[in-house]
């Protein structure tokens, strides 16, 4: 299972970085989403991987439980990355509507044109 989780994180990160470097808004948004999935799984596994254990310390049974803190951290990270993705989609939509291009790079011609205005 360690291999599965580790390779999943690695693949998602690699894909995310590749998409991030595409310099078009839509791939970049997808890339950041992939990266946030990767980091969420990574955070989740930072409390060690345990199967069939509850994150609650049982008062009566065996004292085996999985670390609850990474789960709380992941929950926070998911909420934040979800909100951030929504903001990013809105801002890139705004930038696209303003400038008629979905390129993230601002090239020299753009700045010259803007300075000439």
């Amino acid at each position, binding site marked *: 299972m360690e291999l599965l989780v580790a390779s999943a994180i690695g693949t998602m990160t690699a894909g995310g970085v590749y998409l991030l470097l595409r310099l078009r808004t839509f791939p970049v948004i997808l890339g950041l989403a992939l990266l946030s999935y990767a980091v969420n799984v990574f955070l989740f596994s930072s*409390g060690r991987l345990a199967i069939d254990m509850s994150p609650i310390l049982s008062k009566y049974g065996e004292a085996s439980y999985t670390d609850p803190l990474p789960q709380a951290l992941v929950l926070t990270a998911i909420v934040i990355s979800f909100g951030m993705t929504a903001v990013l989609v809105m801002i890139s939509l705004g930038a696209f509507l*303003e400038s008629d291009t979905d390129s993230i790079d601002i090239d020299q011609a753009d700045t010259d044109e803007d300075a000439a205005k």
Partner: protein
Amino acid sequence: MSHWIILPVVLPAMLAPIIGFMMRHDIVLARVTSTVGAVLLLAISFVLVSMAMDGTTHIYRLGDWPAPFGIVLVLDRLSALMVLLTSVLALMVLLHAMATGWDDRGKHFHALFQFQLMGICGAFLTGDIFNLFVFFEILLIASYGLMIHSGGRERMRAGLQYVVMNLAGSTLFLFALGTLYASTGTLNIADLAAKIPLIPADEAGLVRVAAMLLMIVFAVKAALFPVQFWLPATYSNAPAPVAALFAIMTKVGAYAILRVHTVVFGPGVAGTEGMIDAWLFPAAIVTIALGAFGVLGAKRLMPLISFSVIGSMGTLLIAVAVFSPVATTAALYYMVHSTFAAACLFLIADLVVSRRSGDSLTPTFATVQNGLFAAIFFAAAIAMAGMPPLSGFLGKLLVLDALRGPDVIVWAWTAILVGSLLTIVGFARAGSALFWKSTAIPAPTSDMSAAIPNNNATVLQVAPVMLTLAVLVALSVFAGPVAAYLEQTSNQLFDRSGYISAVLAPVAEG
């Protein structure tokens, strides 16, 4: 346990939704509420400074859970100083934004402004590194809104770059936190500081990775080479008052490096000994060079000021990189100075640029009140470049004095002195193009200049700029007492065991 400590977070957090939901159509009401909020924040931060003045480390336990289990806010001299710095700057920026009408050119300026203050104050006060991440996100999401305030083609595109850059940075931050938690089992700064020195050097590989990842994340915020490239486009395209407020944002990164890499991975920790400064020092040197060349080569005024901010961050971080109390005192003085110098430059640039056709550094006919603007720009420029009599000179002198170690002196002194010279040349060139050569060009006929506002700046519009200059003057006049406070601050920062025992102290019953 004093409830004053949480007020800088709670007050803006309460005001922002009230302004956003109930006063969205009434700019006057929003302005009044926002100003009252900023003044109250200033008063609170004075109380916090007076609380921290006696040298105790105050703890605020959220939910009254003891430290490694619950989240704590920590108030020491450094956090109190940073909150005070934020609130003074915020009030000036707010006054400028209201006087020039920037806040009315888009929606929700005041709500976003309050959220921004909440995030910044929270980041300075928190004693938990995951909480630091959360407050970073709060200040960033507010800054995204402020950055694209009032819209426009170029600003939206620069804003998009800024957002993508910071989202990637946030992802790195989370990776660092995961690594840190996996290797230590805690995210409380004091608890980390207690546990990491116990890890032997040959088993500290993961901790080193986490320390470097955190370093990169904070370097992105502090605009350190090689991750400084987002700053010129962002600051020069942001609304000018927002750029002035962002002067504190780069300092959030510097503060985080100071706090985390001094207390947690500080000097004497076997696992990370010598690794941080080995990277931070050369990076800071290159940052100074980049800033200086950028100032020299800028074709427009706003990028010129942005590059001077990069140069000042290099000077600040070169002193941080030594990780000694003396150098940290110098870094803190320079941090306070460069915040107000950058803010002053952005505010005066706004007054000038709004009366010209664009901010390109080519002589056109003189604006109204050319002499007044020129005088203020001159004063702000010599402060930023580090010439006497203003506090930039003292700040750079303190930094130079602190960097006299035989292994750092050649690089550090060369970079700072040559960088200052290039900055002076760059500012002189900009000033002469903007204010001096322009007097030789006759004003055009009325139909040509109709599009450019030629109204005089009102007293209210000039007052915030004057206030930032007054702070710089006060910083140099009262340099002795300020430096004494900062010296105690950095001594307290380097007293790691004091910090650990204060935060992890058992809760008194009752």
